[in-house]
């Protein structure tokens, strides 16, 4: 009897210990709490929406309006300069053409647009695996993501010309190559056309991508790449949506009078408040701002900004700059493009 007890103890013990020695295989699966597991997160509408939100967010290079508009566009030209003020250390790079890749003026948009591209890529990589949503919804999400990604590339193009086209987050491309003009052209055409096909005419949330936005953006790209016929056709398509009309209004209201500045005996621009001109506080304009081309350009800028100024982020989504790489060599056409651009694309949103 005693022997039996001993043996059974032995068996129990050995089995307990061997239980301990064996391990269950998914014990070491990483548990995720404070972050989102993409496999489940991207299956839900909220998940997909939040990634789109972050993509929109990164598409808006914030707090840089002054820098982008005036430093980049005007300081390398002969309209503006700056000395002695707090802006000088930044402006001097552009007055002297000494900017480099470390300048946040360039590194920030480069980083942010590519972050936005990363987000949309992550979404597009995953969206075909989504089973919980209707095909229509998926189609629309896809179109929206493709629009954002194309818009990111468009804005990058405005800064840098054709840039590497990264279209998936699944593979890491550590040695990306710059796309050719043709590749870039094809990419933007295809993507924006495809997006336009699936995007709705209006969105319930103001500020989200629409069919008109996709077409107008492509139209602007054609305009800025001097593809006149295509630009005309595309913008005609926008007009034919019967949703938008050209802006009409009094421009003078928004333009600072340089005569008035002169009368006050100093070169500092005195601008009415609550106009985008207040962005120019701190920067100084030459005493005479009378050159017709300069004035026209400024007017067109202001016009654009004001029209879109209801939402400052909107401005950045829609208001294109004179591309830097065009700035010196193709100044005239760029100016033309700039004013055209405003007239054609501002009213889109």
């Amino acid at each position: 009897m005693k022997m039996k007890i001993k043996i059974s103890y032995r068996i129990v013990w050995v089995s307990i210990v061997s239980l301990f020695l064996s391990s269950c295989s998914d014990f070491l699966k990483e548990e995720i709490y404070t972050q989102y597991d993409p496999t489940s997160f991207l299956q839900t509408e909220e998940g997909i929406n939040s990634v789109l939100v972050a993509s929109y967010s990164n598409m808006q290079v914030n707090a840089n309006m002054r820098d982008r508009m005036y430093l980049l566009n005007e300081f390398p030209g002969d309209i503006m300069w700056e000395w002695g003020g707090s802006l000088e250390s930044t402006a001097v790079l552009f007055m002297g053409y000494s900017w480099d890749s470390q300048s946040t003026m360039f590194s920030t948009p480069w980083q942010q647009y590519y972050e936005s591209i990363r987000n949309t890529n992550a979404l597009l990589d995953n969206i075909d695996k989504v089973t919980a949503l209707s095909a229509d919804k998926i189609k629309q999400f896809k179109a929206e993501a493709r629009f954002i990604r194309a818009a990111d590339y468009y804005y990058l193009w405005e800064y840098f010309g054709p840039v590497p086209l990264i279209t998936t987050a699944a593979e890491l491309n550590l040695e990306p190559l710059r796309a050719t003009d043709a590749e870039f052209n094809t990419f933007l055409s295809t993507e924006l056309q495809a997006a336009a096909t699936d995007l709705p005419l209006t969105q319930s949330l103001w500020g989200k991508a629409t069919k008109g936005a996709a077409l107008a953006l492509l139209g602007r790209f054609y305009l800025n790449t001097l593809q006149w016929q295509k630009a005309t056709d595309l913008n005609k398509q926008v007009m034919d949506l019967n949703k938008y009309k050209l802006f009409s209004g009094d421009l003078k209201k928004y333009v600072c009078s340089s005569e008035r500045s002169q009368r006050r005996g100093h070169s500092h621009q005195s601008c009415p408040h609550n106009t985008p001109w207040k962005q120019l506080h701190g920067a100084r304009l030459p005493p005479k701002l009378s050159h017709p081309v300069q004035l026209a350009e400024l007017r067109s800028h202001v016009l654009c900004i004001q029209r879109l100024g209801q939402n400052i982020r909107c401005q950045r989504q829609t208001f294109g700059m004179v591309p830097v790489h065009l700035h010196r060599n193709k100044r005239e056409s760029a100016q033309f493009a700039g004013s055209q651009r405003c007239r054609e694309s501002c009213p889109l949103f």
Partner: protein
Amino acid sequence: MVTATASTYSQQTKFTLNLNGVAIREVFREIEQNSKFILLYNEKELDLNHKVDVKVSDETVESILDQAFHEINFSYKIYDRQIVILAPKPGESAGNEKADVYAEQQKKSISGKVTDEKGQTLPGVSVVVKGTTIGVITDVKGVFTLSNVPENAILQFSFVGMKTQETTVLGKTILNIVLTEETVGIEEVVAVGYGTMKKSDITGSVTSVTSKDFVKGVATNALQLLSGKAAGVNISQANAEPGGTLNISVRGAGSINSSNSVLIVIDGLPGGSTANINPSDIESIEVLKDASAAAIYGTRAANGVVLITTKKGKEGVAQVSYNTYFAQQSPSYKFDLLDATQYMQMINDISKDAGKTIPYTSDQVAAAGKGTDWQNELLRNALATNHQLSLSGGTKQTKYYTSLGYLDQDGIMVSSGIKKYNVLVNLEINPSDHFNFGINLNGSMNKKDKIANESNSGGENADPLNAALMFDPRLSPVKNANGEYDKNPSIALDNPVALANGYDFREESNRIYGNSFGEYKILEGLKATIRLGTDLNNIRNDEYSDRTTMKGKASGGIGNVYSNNSKYWLMEGLINYEKSFGKHHLSLMAGSTAERFENLYQRSFATGFLSDVTNTNLLQSGNALTYQVNSAKTVYKLQSYIGRANYSFQDKYLLTATVRRDGTSRFSDKNKYAIFPSLAAGWRITEEPFMKKIPEISNLKLKFGYGRMGNEGIGNFETISTFVAGGNTVLGGAILSGAQPARIPNPELTWETTEEYNIGLDFGFFNNRISGNIEYYKKNTIDQLFSKPVPMSTGFSNIRTNFGNVENKGLDLSLTTRNLTGKVQWTSSLTVSTLKNKVVELPAYVGDIITGGIVANIPGFALVRQGFPMRAFYGYEVTGIFQATDDIAKSAQPTAKPGEPKFLDYDLNGKIDASDRVILGDPFPDLSYSINNSFSYKNFNLDIYLLGVHGIETFNANVLESMFPINFDRNIMTEHYVNRWTPQNTGTGYPSGVNSAVYFANGKMINSFTVQDASFMRIKNITLSYNVPLKNFKLIKSLTLSLSGENLLTITKFDGFDPEANQTDDGTSVAKSSYNNYPIAKVLRIGANINF
């Protein structure tokens, strides 16, 4: 007659000898060498040089002795393996030599007293005539009387825990014996991780410190007990606040970007905290220093492993013991700052030299007096009391140790202190020979009242001590008529007293940890163990700044509550097998463990309260717009297989191999598991027969080991893709929250791995009067975790990868000498260790890594560069002071003025710029040492403990703030004013102080003034204890009183509260800086230890 008492051994052991005309001495040596016989004789009677002839062939020892004693009539008696040689009685003829000595010899009575080394009488000692059953036990007074003892008998005294002692009674009637404690010598058993081993079998580098060798003093953290005791283990008090953090590094530091902290294992439970254990409950601490010893802990071993074993019950009657001490603590250092008069004088002088208006008139200066010493307003003498009550004992079946502990320590800075409550239960039950169950349960509650000591902006957020060092000495420390503390607006610092009292910072931690195990002996030598353990820890912090502080006033009170709730469990199964086959001995261990770590974090914050009285207890009464809430939950898991094999041959050749296969939830399926092997060999040279000829060498063991260990210092989710909240935008007129990918997952990521070689020699000479060991190690930490930049077009700026190599090498020596062993006993212990740390390889993409940043306006000072020690101090070398006679215009600093510092133009390009920075020192000591001298005489015991480090530097931000005040009206150190350069005082080494904002600008504040030598030697402890003789006192078994002094003297060139302190908290514990660190206390302590 002889054969009747001769043992079987003497009958079985046969000799073949052919000796002609040799001394008896030689014959005896032959016998002893060729057998286990021990010969005992009286040298006064026996002429060892007497020449004899012996010729035997396969015969017993009796034949030899008969031949040897044939001429001299000596007789002998054999008791097992002992042979007693007896002189012939006068008149006795050669023919009677084999007569029974018991019957024939004169018998007598012997009495005496047995005491221990401290002179305490020992009752219950067994006194036996060797080889017989004749014997008695000493009485309560340690006295024994034995009658009928033969003249040549040997008496054996034995007592549990004491060394057995033998004495011949020759010619004596009174024998007073002093028994010595069983020395923690060669047969000591030490913990090695997942088991114990005989110390003599250990092949790795393991330092074991037992409770009697612990550093004495007020200890809130168990690591304080180890300070300086283990060569190669550097323990420094980073923050001397009661309950403040301690840094421990074992053999340098290997990781550049991850944690370098050791793994603490308490009673087999990994991951414990030395702050939550009562130091008085600790029996021993083992440090697994090298890879061959530590690799069994795999991914957590790279920075060394500290094993803590708590006290266990022993068989016997219940022992009640009460320990207490009272300690008076006082500041051991104060900065010498300017008093009010000097302060005004300083501002006047520097203003004058700078060509500015002099702000104070001489009347004002004369009237200022001494003013307020702000350090005195914050520092105080403080009391610490400690009580510990323990109960232990047990039977063969059940053994127990329980203890209650209470420590109440006020800090030497106002509004700081700790209250610590501990309870420990250790229970072991052996219901049968086969079963063994145990439970170990530890509960602790730590309540800390903390004082801010933080990296700060140097402004109104400064901590009180920082403010005190720079505050206006003319102001009063008490509130003014408006009920507010005075401030000097141009100093931009809050009043130090307001900061100390108006900012309430409390931390409470409640921790329960412990484990239970069951052990079952399946077969002889085969044992299976399971262990379940847990560690539950809640830490809550409450911070409140009331309206007496500038910050609190501006916000209407600031309340912040945050808590961490961590849970841990462990399951483990082990199988042990042990077997001897002849001269071979094998022991095997295999097992598996699974561990889960979980942490919950929560924070609530508000400002703008109705009133300060609710403190942090009613955060909802704050302004709702200021509410901040945070929460987090993190989990990770480890699952491992472990194995160890020990093999020894003839106890001479030792081999140990261990392996651990660690798997973690943190790595991808690709690299989930990693293997950490180790191999070590030992050779006990003294076990070799040829060594027996050198009795002076009592122990010699050569060890060699190699192993690989991992560093788990890596965060969750590094190898998988996750999305994190972020990227909000406005759509449809409302803010929407976004989410985006957190990182580029790198599934290839693997552990930082440390490879170590260790070679060591354990030695003991002259019966271990001199003993110790010396070890040399070299370890390389490879596959360091780095963030490798990637093209931004990926949408990320970097990816975590493995790269790089850091090397640590050094020599550890520990030496113990028993200088005097008589009435006055004197033992010295010495540890010395050297360390060389070097960054061997860095990824090309990282360039120079410069960190520091203890305060926003102080640039980085710690450099990681290939070929140099990690986090070396990097700055400008000051070569002198410009004099009016110097040709300044032609120097590298053409715009400098006389009195400004001259910097080394390292690159000789004629200007001083960032490329002139040089290595000014490093945070690793070249040499660390400790010396302990222990004296005892009668009931007195005196311990003197010294420790020090040499060849270590630190960045001293307080010196920086004095020499380079960011604000002209701040107070400075007397030295920097009195000894400053002036046109009259040109021989000094200090600059003029005029325009320091210019001459120390652009990072030049990191220079050879502010990087200081932090070498020191400290009289850490002197303890005198007295064992009160208790005669006829039944209630108390023993009473020991002690008086000790701690941190009595520190010899250093460093200017500051403590050269050991460290303010940098970058997670790697390597970079070193000093900045308003909590001052170290000088302590006077009286204590008592009573056993009932």
